[in-house]
């Protein structure tokens, strides 16, 4: 699960990171800081797992007012 600050939402943490990168001489136009959540989920198929994880995102893992999320799968 990748959780990111939504487009257009002020991200002070990302701004601070960009600022520091520029001080180090890296020419970075924007930096956005989000988070990665790794989940091990048992499911019969990817669709079922996706629905379950989407509910987790809506109910707890992301705040849809300010964050967008993306679900990526790795089959075990």
């Amino acid at each position, binding site marked *: 699960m990748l959780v990111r600050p939504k487009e257009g939402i*002020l991200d002070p943490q990302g701004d601070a990171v960009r600022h520091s990168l520029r001080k180090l001489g890296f020419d970075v136009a924007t930096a956005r800081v989000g988070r990665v959540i790794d989940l091990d989920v048992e499911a019969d198929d990817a669709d079922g797992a996706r629905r379950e994880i989407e509910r987790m995102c809506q109910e*707890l893992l992301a*705040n849809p007012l*300010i964050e967008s999320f993306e679900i990526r799968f790795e089959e075990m």
Partner: protein
Amino acid sequence: MSDRPLVAVVVFPGSNDDRDAAWALGSVGAEPTFVWHEETSLPKGTGAVVLPGGFSYGDYLRTGAIASVAPVMDPVRRFAAAGGPVLGICNGFQVLCEARMLPGVLRPNRQLEFVCRDAALRVEAVDSVFLHRCAIGQELVIPVKHGEGAWYADEGTFVQLAARGQIVLRYTDDVNGALGNVAGVVNETGNVMGLMPHPEHAVDPLLGSADGGLLLAALVDAAAAHRALVPA
């Protein structure tokens, strides 16, 4: 049983203003009682609920997010739905937003610094039970101490809230980058309020200001009224 209205102060792991809140509520006529976050009901006769300041669950995930799904939030939600007054202070405000009991969300301060100082606030609306001891335009001095207090909502929501009188307190200067300098909001029915400043730290002139007492005393009034309405 005491004739002082019972006010439940919820304690989450990491709450740290629960005892100050209880002390301050006692000083304005309440009978405070602590309620642990794993409780699935509120004490019989509860007239109001306070979600105190602190760092519930270490602010993990997002401030207030994990507390917002704690077992105690079910009875708190039912209490609010029945018209019971609920006040969230600082972390309590963050919890109420994450629980979708209040509009918007609290984000990291724009300056990325913890802010800890007295803040001047302007009263914007007095229709809710929490502000009835104040006048519109009145200035209150109440301390803030938070790292994630920048209230945010989308533009449409913000305009609608302001029109409905749900923006109740604003900072008179830019404290943390909050949209519209918003310091406190109420829900649509006016019985749930959240604010970042700490009224429990401003109930005695000796501590710099007693303005917080106006809000807490109003909560105690509301607790008495609610208890009279809903027999224990």
